[in-house]
């Protein structure tokens, strides 16, 4: 049972934050693109705003790695 649950948990730990990141970026992307059309000087802010939600996916990945390592996978 554990052999099945550990990888599943690790997969959920990375996939749910990744989906959340994707959703957040899908909302930020069009909004910041519209802003850039009017104010190109916001390009640095644009990069940052799009990169900020990636933290969720990255930390999800770290947690997944920890789950696998703690379980001896």
């Amino acid at each position: 049972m554990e052999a099945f649950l550990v990888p599943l948990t690790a997969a959920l730990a990375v996939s749910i934050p990744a989906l959340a990141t994707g959703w957040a970026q899908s909302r930020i992307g069009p909004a910041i693109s519209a802003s850039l059309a009017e104010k190109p000087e916001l390009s640095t802010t644009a990069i940052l705003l799009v990169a900020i939600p990636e933290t969720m996916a990255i930390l999800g990945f770290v947690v997944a790695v920890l789950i696998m390592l703690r379980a001896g996978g």
Partner: protein
Amino acid sequence: MILPMIRARILGPREDLDAVIGAVQDVGLLQLSEVHPSGALRPVEPDARDAREARHLRALLRDVDVLAARFAPSPSPSKAPAPAAFATWLRQFRRVRRDVERLEAKRRALEEERTETARLLEFIRAFRGLLPSGGGTRTHGYHLVLRGQDASVVARLREGLAQAIGNEFVLETAPLSSGELAAVLLVPPTDAPRVERLLAQAGVHELPMPAGSGGKTLGQLGPGLAARRDALDAELATLERERAALSAEVGANLGGARAAAEDRLLGLAAREKAAATSRSFVLEGWIPAAGFPRLTQTIADRFGPRVVVESVAREDWQGESAPVVLTNPRLFRPFETITRMVPLPAYGTIDPTPFVAVFFPMFFGLILGDIGYGLVLAIMALWLRHGGAPGSTRRAVAEVLGAAAAFSVAFGIVFGEFFGDLGLRWFGMRPLLLDREHSLLSFLALAVAIGAVHIILGLALGVYNASRGHPRQAVGKGASLVMVLLIIVVLLAALEVLPRGFMTPAVVGLLVLFPVLILAEGIIAPIEFLSTLSNILSYARIMALGTASVMMAVVANELAGSIGSVLVGVLFALLFHLVNFALGIFAPTIHGLRLHYVEFFGKFHSPGGQAYRPFSHWRPSGSAG
């Protein structure tokens, strides 16, 4: 660092104002600022003469723009010529502009006629012998031009004609060089009205006859049209010679005229920054401390004791309003590009460029961490640097990439990676200190430790910034800094890296500092402190991205051996490495920038600095200096 500035004040008799402005412009170091009126001191308003001169100069620049777009102007001189010729230039450019616009209108008309004539001649050549001579009334002829050379157009026309008038017609076609289809249609005169209706319905137009053809047929016009085409060629050549003469007349003056006019307009605008009484004037502005003696000397040399230059005491001006000039050693200078991507730091605070120059390529190297990818990046950086002018953004980006490539190679040696595990497979290369592929926890610990160092450094810089004018804030930031250090001690003691005995004093220290933090920075401080801790965890991305990078490279190498055909396997592997390399440039750049702008700068950066724009002679945009 941020260059120290001096607020300079220049005082002198009012009649010397224009000459002093000229001298300041020659020095080119003073950024003029408004002088606050007080007592009899009033801003210098532009008089009617100045307004008229500015109007004429702007008209002159409009004419220069129009002419420069048509002729190849001479390059603008490095120093504007004397403006004595403004009136002459204005008259000359206005006349030449009128002449050139007249020539262009005439040339457009002649070229249009030349195109039509050439088409008619081509038509005549294509249907020589078929064209109606006009002598008889046995047939009625139409000269048609069909869009496109699709044969189905002709078939449809032929079918329509057969239905309308039977088979009593002749339709011949030939392709034209313009891509259209020329057609001659001969029908009995009695069928002409029905044919014309049909052609109108189908949207087929007859070839327009030249003006003044006097009812002659196309066949009769042939020799006259050939002569007219030759005459048009001659007229066009004459127009081109006239245009070249106009270009030669003004082309050499355009660059100089623009420089002089722009320069004079800058002088007029500078005059409005001054304040004056009925007898004297005051000019104020910012100048780098190192340039102040040069300004003083120049004014003293030209005006003697009549005009005085003094520095305003530091207490009398607010540091925040001074312009900011970043100045860094040659090695760090390219990284100013990264600092300038966010608002400049306020005057009197810390320039983060040296820290960016150390940490940005380090983060990049930790994430990419591969000798092979690092070398490819170095080649790209060299190519980019080769094409960039000194001081250009391209050159700066190339040098930043060069540093990132050097760190990537260095960490590649540490991690023992050459295009993933290819180094191990080919040369038996082993990691020097850390195997990223297998020691994930060690890599995570390293990433978070580097994050802790980066954030602690940011907090220390924040304490330094706040200590100059905001002591309460400095105490709050200092408390945060010590608390972060104490939490690290507690964690290390819990993990038995440090002796257990460290834990109790560290926890007591945290309990003592917590109220200090709230007293110094308010009730929101604990939340900000928690966000500081999460900022440290954010550096885990270095490990996550680095691991993803090495795993992708390993998968690429395994692909080469796992596909039946060696050639296809190698191609797949190359493609995979290419994708990984593209991600390997993009991800470290974006996340390196983010770690700096969000996590690091957030601890100390005080934006609000204004760029330094000294009052100097006009230079074409894009020119150095």
